[in-house]
């Protein structure tokens, strides 16, 4: 950044220490210099990363925000923003499609996150007790999570297929008639929850397992001396200790589940009717199929606002609980 090529550390301090400068360490002046310069060098080295983040994250987000308020017209040679408007939000928030998508996305998120947390914790508790076999079991368990979402969805799509699907056949043997798994709203939603739980429980399990391994052994010893049974130990010792890490897992899952796109896209295309049309699918259809750019951006923005609010709310509730837990 500076044009001078003089070695930094040999030079006396030309700049004066500002009032906000922290107390200098021993050796005074030169250290203060290098502090300023170091900050500048720091910015210099960080600038490529900052520019990249701005280009790939900040700019698209802000641009999408702009589009959601814009009356956009596509023209030969590109597009033009004619005026700014709030109409898109009015149209989105008042539309039955959006309400339906919100309902599905919320339900899907709540059910899958809850199931994955319970099953993942259970799996982690089992894994923790496994000795030498843990590595192998973990590897097998992680397989679904390692699969690319679309591939996993396609795989389950074959299982659910109404004509030759393995699960369809199995249900037919048990029920005596051919079930229409993806063709009816309730079973289609259920089928989608199953795939997501199958795929993402390992993620929760591994996060919780990491948390379990961090709990110091002496707390358990203390609990044992106090005469706590297995259940009491789990509820009063393990779970409170796991809370922070579980919160992280849940937060991650809420973020992912709320943006669910690939499962409904591959399995049902949002059907039957619009029963499994998530907010992400609705946004995709609005933007890329209907070319309603402003409205599509408004769907995306409202989704982002809702998921961020949910996460903040969750963190607040969690923090309150953790504080209470600390006092108890």
């Amino acid at each position, binding site marked *: 950044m500076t044009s001078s090529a003089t070695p930094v550390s040999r030079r006396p301090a030309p700049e004066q220490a500002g009032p906000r400068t922290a107390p200098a360490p021993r050796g005074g002046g030169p250290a203060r210099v290098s502090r300023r310069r170091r*900050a500048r060098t720091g*910015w210099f080295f960080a600038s490529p990363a900052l520019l990249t983040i*701005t280009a790939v994250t*900040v*700019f698209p*987000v*802000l*641009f999408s*925000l*702009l589009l959601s308020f814009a009356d956009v*017209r*596509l*023209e*030969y*040679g*590109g*597009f*033009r*923003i004619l005026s700014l408007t709030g109409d898109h939000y009015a*149209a*989105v928030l008042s*539309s039955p*499609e*959006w309400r339906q998508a919100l309902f599905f996305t919320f339900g899907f998120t709540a059910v899958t996150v809850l199931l994955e947390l319970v099953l993942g914790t259970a799996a982690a508790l089992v894994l923790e007790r496994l000795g030498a076999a843990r590595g192998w079991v973990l590897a097998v368990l992680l397989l679904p999570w390692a699969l690319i979402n679309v591939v996993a969805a396609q795989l389950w799509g074959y299982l659910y*297929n*109404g*004509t*030759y699907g393995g699960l*369809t056949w199995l249900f037919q043997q048990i029920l005596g008639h*051919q079930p*229409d798994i*993806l*063709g*009816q*709203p309730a079973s289609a939603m259920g089928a989608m929850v199953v795939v997501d739980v199958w795929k993402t429980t390992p993620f929760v399990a591994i996060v919780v397992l990491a948390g379990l391994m961090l709990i110091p052994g002496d707390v358990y010893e203390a609990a044992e001396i106090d005469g706590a049974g297995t259940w009491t130990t789990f509820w009063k010792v393990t779970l409170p200790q796991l809370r922070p890490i579980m919160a992280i897992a849940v937060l991650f899952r809420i973020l992912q589940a709320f943006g669910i796109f690939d499962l409904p896209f591959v399995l*049902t*295309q*949002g*059907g*039957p*009717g*619009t029963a499994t049309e998530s907010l992400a699918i*609705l946004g*995709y*259809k*609005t933007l*890329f*199929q*209907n*070319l*309603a*750019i402003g*409205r599509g951006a408004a*769907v995306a923005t409202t989704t982002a606002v809702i998921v961020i609010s949910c996460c903040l709310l969750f963190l607040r509730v969690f923090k309150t609980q953790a504080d209470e837990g600390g006092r108890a």
Partner: protein
Amino acid sequence: MALSRRTLLASGLAAGAGLTSGCAGKPLDTLLTQAAQVPRTPATLTWWVSEIPSRNGPVVADLIIRAFERRHPHIHVRKSNALSTTDSNRAAVTTQLAGASPTPDVYLGDTTWPAQFGANSLALPLQKLLPEDFWTGYPAALRRVSEYRGAVYALPFFTDSAFLYYRKDLLAKHGRPVPRTWEELLRTARTIQRAGDAPYGFLWQGSVSESLTCNVAEFLADAEAPVLDGEGRVALNGPGAERAFAMMREFTETGVTPSTVATYVEADSQDAFTGGRGVFLRNWSYAWGNAADRAVSKVAGRVGVAPRPGFDGGGPRGVSCAGGWSNFVNPNSSHLGAAVAFARFCAGEEAQMILLKNAGVIPALEDVLTRPEARAVGDPTLTGVRELHLVARPVQTPYYPQVSKALYTRANAVIGGRATPVQALRAARADIRTALEGKAL
């Protein structure tokens, strides 16, 4: 040095606004002047093309490209592989086009796209570049769907027509003729199903996608019930429309069509049929190639093709949705003249003959279907297509995707037994009205 959130927000918005103003607004006349001349200088075109079903093995798109390059040695055409379903294809190509990308120069698109693409300046209006008698060689329904507000946005390439495929052996075994009405088809299918000769009677496409809209449009046309009236307002009312919706429900209710049809796209229904599970199949003309191919079809040699039936008591028979694919020219192409030349070549006789001989699709140029070569190919859909009664979907609105969604979502509920035909029609009418006003999402 720290960037406050506000600064960041403001500068981002400013940058966005700056980027968008000034990049648009090329005058159409300039573009058309460029498009009117085939350049003498070398040019490379990109052609966005999905896989064209092949009859004999060679890649059909390559044959056409080679033929074009022989005529125009200085123009080179490169293939860009498009996706297979029309909806995902549209999403992919519009992303590029709306961003003013100069590639692809020419793209193969669905016949339902012209109004939407024309209204959004994603395709070049071509009518001024065409001779007056250009359309005389192509089906009238194809011309209707390619035009929007008097402008032509797509040049014909090939058509998809819907047929009724049936199991010759099963009909012969039970002494039944090929059904001429839906009521007759129901009876025949049930007889064969009860005898245990096939688990399913009639297979078609009922998933929430454009596939179902095609089926709905055909059933409605069978019952002579229009979706829109003469002034472009929603019609979709009365006994005809109810009859069409009620028939779709009757198929699934009686088990002649499996209830899983509610999730079927073309490939699912075709797989079930070629796997020997069904008596009848509604599918596009290209399905003949697969049904007759011993490598993929268990029922090869036992399949017949007929026009779709109609309803009892008169009305049209052999109705088919006017489906198919046409070439569009990207208005941002840097080689407009070459692009138009290529799109026109694809619609012309030489390319159409290549399609006739090598592709499992129906060439758009009707004249080539009467040639001796057409009969020599031995594909009954090629010779049968002229008897069909082609109907256009209500595509002449930039809001067609929303109209289509209204139709397929509501019809899907009828098929699954979640709504009565009357309820579904009422809901679909409301949805389509909202869509036509531009108020649907």
